[in-house]
């Protein structure tokens, strides 16, 4: 990942505990309905016990015990926070404390469906809290509304199938009684994909796949594992590790996001350079649709049998059916893992280096991130602190080759003016990926709102798009009356032969604005227009959902839309999977 901004994010001190990242994963296996929501925030990111807060001395700390950062005090964060956003600890915007059940509309129930469902014995709930929890993802406007205690259209019931057959039954009943189904995995969507269409008058049933979380078999000959699609990333990794394997798929949300969700949104992980993206990792997919079950007849590693039917499923965003089981490639756990980091005098050099590294090494170089400096490095001799940028690196493989390639990478970096900045910085960079989402919640306590969004773009346009989108954000904020200069920064998170994935981070202090979310949405909209005008894609891996639907037609062409529509029309003529994403 490459990130860069003048005045980035503060260094975090006293990182001494050397705990493996994996220790942050959930120890206990989730086993029954609704338990997840007891340890998760209902109106913010992640675990209830983990959050950034300012203690009585005004110093920032991270609570809980789950992360390496937990229990640490970060004196620099306050200063950074105040100077970057013009925020003040005096001006608080606390969230409303508990979910307000009375604000939730009573469920619209299709009694006949409920009766038939009861007879199947599949657990379900009509409890307001359960329903609200599954009515949103993590878009800014969704979280903002929850913090204000506002709730819109929510699912009328939640069901918890425990295996493929349960899903078949649910879908059959839904078709029979014309009920709307919305599949729910980890709830980490950032595309308004989980929002219930307000105009939907049928009963909306949230199909929570969290109980379908078993590894059904591991095939060591073929290096594949057959897994139920409701399993969340960290659990899948933990279970595979027990057998000495891994998938290598590590999206930033892997603590909470599910395998089925990855398939449905075409997810991408930070180690994709070795292991590949989700579409490279799946060998077989099973999905239940209103027309029946779709799957291939064999597990051949590649097939020439017309267009790959997996690609109707990958990225279908819950509009066609529920993914129930997936056969995934697995790899033996890497023998050796090494973090690293390089600091570059500026972002341009960093990008050029990443490109060069990519053309030389593809095997061991698991991941990298170019980030804005101050995150973990404040001073570096001879470098302009406002321009320098940091690349974090992760090497995996057998020890000898890791060391050999590490040297090669640092040699290349040197050609671009990059200096090795140590393993610690690299590791911290990776760790921060997991806690960065918690930072937004802190901001929201003090009038600061923000979000990240991503795109993919050819190499020759990376610098142009970064400059133009950042500038567009700043300009749009100014035009819309934002009183304080916004944080507008970016990083390169994934690289390909033909281009890169770029993340933009955007946040601002909204004091003085009457409708901050609207302003935020207008700016994000403008930023997306700018991305498209600069040759960027509509999304690299977040998906389209309902948030980016309006650009789909120009993105895939009229004919392309027609193709997708006709698939939907055949597979789901009654619009049972009625979340209205994508099309």
């Amino acid at each position, binding site marked *: 990942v490459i990130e860069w901004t003048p005045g980035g994010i503060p260094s975090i001190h006293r990182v001494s505990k050397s705990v493996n990242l994996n220790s942050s994963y959930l120890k206990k296996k989730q086993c029954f309905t609704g338990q997840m929501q007891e340890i998760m925030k209902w109106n913010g990111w992640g675990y209830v016990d983990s959050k950034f807060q300012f203690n009585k001395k005004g110093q920032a700390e991270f609570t809980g015990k789950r992360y390496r950062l937990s229990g640490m005090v970060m004196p620099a964060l306050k200063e950074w926070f105040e100077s970057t956003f013009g925020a003040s600890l005096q001006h608080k915007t606390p969230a409303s404390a508990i979910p307000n059940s009375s604000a939730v509309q009573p469920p619209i129930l299709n009694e006949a469906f409920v009766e038939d469902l009861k007879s199947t014995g599949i657990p379900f709930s009509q409890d307001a809290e359960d329903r609200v929890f599954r009515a949103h993802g993590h878009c800014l406007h969704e979280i903002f509304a929850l913090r204000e205690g506002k709730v819109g259209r929510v699912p009328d019931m939640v069901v918890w199938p425990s295996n493929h057959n349960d899903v078949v039954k649910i879908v059959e009943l839904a078709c029979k009684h014309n009920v709307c189904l919305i599949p729910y995995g980890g709830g980490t969507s950032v595309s308004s994909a989980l929002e219930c269409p307000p105009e939907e008058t049928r009963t909306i049933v949230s199909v929570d796949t969290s109980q379908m979380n078993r590894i059904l078999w591991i095939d060591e000959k073929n290096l594949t594992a057959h897994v139920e699609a409701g399993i969340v990333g960290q659990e899948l990794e933990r279970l595979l590790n027990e057998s000495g394997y891994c998938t290598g798929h590590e999206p930033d949300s892997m603590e909470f996001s599910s395998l089925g969700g990855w398939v449905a949104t075409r997810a991408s992980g930070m180690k994709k350079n070795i292991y590949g993206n989700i579409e490279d990792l799946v060998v077989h997919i099973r999905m239940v649709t209103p027309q029946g079950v779709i799957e291939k007849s064999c597990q051949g590693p590649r097939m020439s049998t017309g267009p790959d039917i997996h690609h109707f499923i990958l990225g279908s965003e819950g509009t066609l059916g529920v993914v129930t089981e997936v056969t995934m490639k697995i790899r033996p756990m890497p023998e050796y893992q090494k973090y690293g980091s390089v600091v570059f005098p500026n972002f341009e050099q960093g990008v050029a280096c990443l490109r060069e590294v990519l053309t030389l090494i593809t095997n061991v170089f698991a991941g990298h991130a170019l980030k804005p400096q101050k995150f973990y490095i404040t001073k570096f001799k001879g470098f302009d602190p406002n321009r320098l940028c940091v690349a974090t690196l992760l090497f995996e493989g057998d020890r000898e080759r890791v060391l050999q390639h590490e040297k090669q990478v640092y040699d290349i970096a040197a050609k671009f003016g990059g200096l090795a900045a140590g393993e610690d910085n690299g590791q911290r960079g990776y760790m921060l990926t997991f806690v960065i989402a918690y930072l937004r919640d802190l901001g929201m306590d003090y009038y600061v709102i923000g979000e990240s969004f991503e795109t993919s773009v050819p190499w020759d346009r990376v610098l*142009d798009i970064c400059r133009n989108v950042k500038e*567009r954000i700043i300009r749009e904020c100014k035009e819309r009356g934002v009183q304080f200069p916004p944080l507008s920064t970016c990083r390169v998170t994934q690289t390909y032969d033909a281009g890169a994935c770029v993340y933009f981070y955007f946040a601002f202090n909204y004091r003085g604005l009457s409708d901050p979310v609207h302003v935020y949405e207008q700016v994000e909209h403008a930023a997306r227009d700018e991305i498209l005008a600069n*040759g960027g894609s509509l999304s690299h891996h977040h998906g389209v959902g309902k948030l980016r639907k309006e650009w789909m037609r120009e993105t895939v062409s009229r004919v392309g839309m027609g193709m997708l529509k006709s698939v939907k029309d055949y597979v789901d003529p009654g619009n049972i999977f009625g979340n209205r994403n994508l099309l």
Partner: protein
Amino acid sequence: MASEAVYSHRDPMLKKRDDFEDILEERRNCSDLRYALKCYTPVVYKGLTPCKAGVLKNMVLQSDQLHYVINQVSKETGKAPEDVQEEASAILEEMAHRMQLSTVRFFAFTLCKVFKTLFRSICVNEEGIQRLQQAIQEHPVVLLPSHRSYMDFLLMSYILFTYDLALPVIAAGMDFMGMKIVGEMLRMSGAFFIRRSFGGDKLYWAVFSEYVKTILKNGLAPVEFFLEGTRSRTAKSLTPKLGLLNIVMDPFLKGEVFDINVVPVSISYERILEETLYARELLGVPKPKESTSGLFKARRVLSEDYGSIHVYFGQPVSVRSLAEGRVNRCQFNLTPRHIPKRPSDDVHSFVNAAAYRLVRAQEENMVLKPWVLLASLLLQNHHQDLDQDRAAGPERGMGLDELTEEALWLRDVCRQYGAFLHWPDHVPPSEVVSSSLDLHRGLVRISEGRVRLAVEHAGPSGPGVHPGAGPEEQLLNQAVVVLSCASYRNQALHVFLRPALLASAMHIATSSNKQEVFNSFSFLRNMFSNEFILCPGATMQDFEEACFLLVKTGVLQITEQEVLSTHRGHRTLAFLTRMMDPFLQGYQVICMFLCEEASEALTEKTFIPAVRGFMVKQLLSGRLRYTEVLSSDLQKNALAALLRLGAVLKTKGADQTTLKVNRVMVNSLEDTLGGKLPTQKAAVARL
């Protein structure tokens, strides 16, 4: 057309403009040398450190763009890529500027001296300078001055140096390079030289466009060029040329920069150095080749009072906001940006519309001096004298009081139309008039309290008739004065243009029916769109503007059905139609020529001399009144219009282009211009 649309027009009188500061004033009080050697530290784009000329050249030569074209040319011609690269390098060498601060300082020193001798003042709007300074730091800047004189770009650089602003890199015609030392010195003060035509030369185009883009994209210096392509000899703005504008907009359209600021600059001369030179040129004396000695000679000859100069730096125009909603930038997503591509239709029409908008912005901020009004009035009076056959009598010309009264009336009209008129209100009007006449004494005669153009007429009583001068020569001598005078009137044309077109339209329309008047207006506008700056596709808007102004000033009453003149509007309408008359008549005569005289063998080259010969005959025989029509500018514009309308067709032969005349069509155009034929229903939306 909804009537409220007509009246919702923004009142041009409300236009706000900045005040001026005289930058020569300080120069008259302290050392020029100290000024030339002052500390010069201009603000630059985003704190960039200026790069050396050599670095710039390397950037150009190593660009993907140029590499691509070099390989292409090499494949097409069979030359080795290294040889083509060599050629590219030579082109760049010939083209590139070599800005040197010492030369700039030399110029600053010399120009101080020259300007102080020639001009009373050089007035600059300092607020415009401040806006420019801001703009330079934010985004790459393109400066677009109007072009009326050789002085223009020296003057621009001089002003920017004075205000400690980044000196521009200026696109100059190759002909300047012929001026031995001066050419090189201009190069060292920031000029780069381009060939006048290089239509088919891919390599030249690639080097040239990449050179300009590299400077612009990296914010190395503001790029300056003349939208009009060449100096306007008539003081009317010329139809903008799109080549360079296309190049400078490209980096924005392709996302290589966030935005580009385009700054229109209006330079108005109270008296143009090249005044009579231009008139002669328009009459067919070819343009003298730029030579150093010529320039110095010109300077010596012309070292008299040229009044003042006003330079107005307009509001920077963001290319991004111009393009908003007009160009889909995604069109550049599917091919690598370094592969040269013809602009798509929407890009072309966007650049064209932007160019017109920018030229109009230049026009709007041109400062008009009282003399411009006097010249307009004197010209009209001159023609009335001819009409009433008193051209040689004692009644000719205008009484000073009469002229003053008319000028005051016209001043007020002008202001109501939103003109940027500098009429010193604190000075008694008679003094304003007399001092204006004094400055332009070469063009007027004052005797016995009457003023007229300094045109001597043939005839028994005509004084000052050169014995031995043939009638044709006399005619040309008169035409020099008339054209010089017309060039001042032309400075105000843009102010009156739309109302004048409406007045003429009412004149040639067969009734006062609103639709019919609009049709005539639309016809005239279409006919004259090579002659004046009329934005493409803005017929309705122009019509509304004209109606708005004339209704506001009580000249017209417009009802649902009709356009009617009021009693008190007569004076204005007469003035406006008289203003358009020379052009109407000029186009008519050209049509007449094409119908009656043009032979089958008429070529593009012989067109001007043949038309001129025909006109001279007509003028001498008294059938034609306006000597102005002898202007080759008008003749060229008319031909371009006729070609555009398809009334004349070009056929390319082996060594010349012949013109094929559609007599029926030309004839009907002539009749319509003369009001003898009703206009065809305009294709544009109905009223």
